[in-house]
């Protein structure tokens, strides 16, 4: 958290996203709140269908949020009209999972990276070229050699570098990364993770890093938030949360992550069953149907996120640590 300070860049209050499925409603994100401080990286983990990607997309208003508020540097995004929202969104950029399909295969790399500048008419001519060259250099792609090539000529890792360069063209405050390394091989994944760490320092970025890989998320994040079925279970500093998970779901999730070490005693306790359908979520705590510690209280009353010290918050009636509070 060394670079992070107390200035809130992004504040999310009771964010909800509900999709219609025929006559039914799926609440993909069911009221989550968190703050993102300047210079920090918040990791958002959870299994497929927990709403982590939908959260990222709703923050960019790629999918409309159906409730709650999103404050970017104090400005509320959801109540703005289209033009105002578009203007505010200049501060936010997003990078997606599939780097190859995120880029137009028939455009030249330098034009892809320059597109945000062109859209906002921020630079042209020599200035535009020099900004683009600088960005490509920053992400490790030589503009003199590769600037005129087409996106289709690059591998996944290189496409992800180009996506990153494009996202930085607007000099954003906030970068939302949605599973940006999950399609890459480990050696390429390490390159991209290190690159993001370097660029974060250099550009003073604040990041929301959405991923399912627990080791990747811990590596890059200052704080981590765990989602289950549209709700936040737990949020806290990475090292604390991984060492002392307070929510039973977090503990199972960490137990299922396999460490690449054959001599380490690894937990083989597995979580039974599968997540319930978001069409018909359980009453009270959404995790209670798979939780070994669930009681009647869990069915009757929904646990709210509460502080258990050291910036660690948990939504559980019977947390594994800090229960004395």
């Amino acid at each position, binding site marked *: 958290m060394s670079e992070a300070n107390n200035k809130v860049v992004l504040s999310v209050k009771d964010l909800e996203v509900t999709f219609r499925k025929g006559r039914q409603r799926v609440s993909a994100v069911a009221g989550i709140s968190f703050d993102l401080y300047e210079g920090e990286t918040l990791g958002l983990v959870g*299994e*497929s269908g927990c709403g982590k990607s939908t959260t990222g997309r709703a923050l960019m208003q790629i999918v409309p949020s159906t409730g709650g508020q999103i404050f970017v540097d104090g400005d509320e995004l959801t109540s703005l009209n289209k033009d105002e929202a578009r203007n505010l969104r200049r501060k936010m950029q997003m990078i997606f999972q599939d780097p190859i399909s995120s880029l137009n295969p028939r455009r030249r790399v330098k034009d892809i990276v320059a597109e945000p500048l062109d859209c906002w008419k921020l630079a042209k001519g020599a200035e535009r070229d020099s900004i683009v060259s600088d960005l490509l*250099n920053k*992400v*490790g*792609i*030589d503009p003199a*050699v*590769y600037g005129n*090539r087409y996106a*289709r*000529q*690059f*591998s996944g*890792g*290189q496409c992800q570098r180009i996506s990153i360069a494009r996202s930085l063209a607007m000099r954003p405050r906030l970068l939302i990364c949605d599973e940006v390394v999950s399609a890459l*091989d*480990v*050696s*390429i*994944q*390490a*390159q991209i*993770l*290190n*690159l993001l*760490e*370097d660029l974060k320092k250099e550009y003073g970025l604040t990041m929301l890093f959405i991923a*399912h*890989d*627990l*080791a*990747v998320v*811990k*590596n*890059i*994040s*200052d704080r981590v938030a765990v989602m289950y079925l549209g709700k936040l279970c737990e949020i806290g500093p*990475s*090292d604390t949360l*991984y060492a002392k998970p307070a929510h039973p779901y977090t503990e*199972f*999730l*960490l*137990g*299922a*992550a*396999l*460490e*690449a*070490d*054959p*001599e*380490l005693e*690894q937990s*083989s306790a*597995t*979580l*039974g069953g*599968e997540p319930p359908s978001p069409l018909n979520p359980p009453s009270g705590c959404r995790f209670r149907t798979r939780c070994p510690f669930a009681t009647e209280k869990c069915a009757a009353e929904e646990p709210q996120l509460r502080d258990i010290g050291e910036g660690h918050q948990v939504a559980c009636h019977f947390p594994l640590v800090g229960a004395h509070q």
Partner: protein
Amino acid sequence: MSQEINSTNQNPAGDLLVVENLTTTFQTARGALPAVGGVSFRLGANEILGVVGESGSGKTVLSRTIMGLQPRTNVEVGGSVLLDGHQIVGATDEDLRDIWGTKVAMIFQDPMTSLNPVTKIGKQIGESLQVRLGMNKAEAKARVIELLTLVGIPSPEERYDAYPTQLSGGMRQRVMIAIALACNPTLLLADEPTTGLDVTIQAQILNLLDELQLKMKMSVILVTHDLGVVATRTDRIIVMYAGRIVEMGTTKEVFRNHKMPYTRALLESTPRVSNPSHTRLQTIPGRPPNLLKLTEGCAFAPRCSRATEKCSQERPTLEPTGVDGHYFACWNPLEDQAAPVSIQTGTIKEIGEDNVRG
């Protein structure tokens, strides 16, 4: 899955699978692509062998070639795959059909595209029972329900009539496993069986495979890119790079005393849950080589910090370390695990010309 079951190299008679100098070459418009470039190994009974490598290392093509599954045209297979006395290379379709299911079966990565979406799962599992084992409909149905129970699908009688789209990813993978195990194969090839699944579901499926391997006394080849999976679930591993084996040995030995710089680089570029956050990751510069343009030397040499002139001229062969059937292919092997190799860190500023496709 005990670690005691080691390489059975000392006892070739006991080997279930003997692969010798296996090559799989695809004829492409741009030339011959050696996806598997001369692979030899043995697999003992009841052994779990992990095959690891990055995309394009040839691990999937290797497993498909062992199964005898490859396109009919534009592919050349050389060498030998002897499975329990049956030669797979050059076998006719009828020969292969005799082996598939009963001797060798395969689980694929994506259960949704491997299952027929318009056929009930009970029928898909029962198909081989009726065709291969000659069971009648009622016998097959009873056995299918047994198999569904075995792979942990709740209320199997009801699920018998379910379509694949009605099941979750984890459940579909259980159905795939049931299909593979229907005729009691002696060798199970699992190609990235948990890659699309969530971690908690992955743990369920891996535990299930463990349990079934013991119960059914199978050998398993587990193909994966996930080092966590191989570390915890295999007896022995093969590390592949550019279509060849670069290191092979018992899982413990390879993780602890790897000799090949690529193996170390792979291990060190993997983020770990046990490391504090913001631990700088080691990276391997560059990208895997283009198989169409392989040179005479070691394929890893252009990315290797220990490479010498010899590495780019002469390809190293697999040599034994003398420990537990541990082999490596490297001219400048890592001496001592205490001395860390200096793999380049940080952003790669130079990406070589030939690293760009097209």
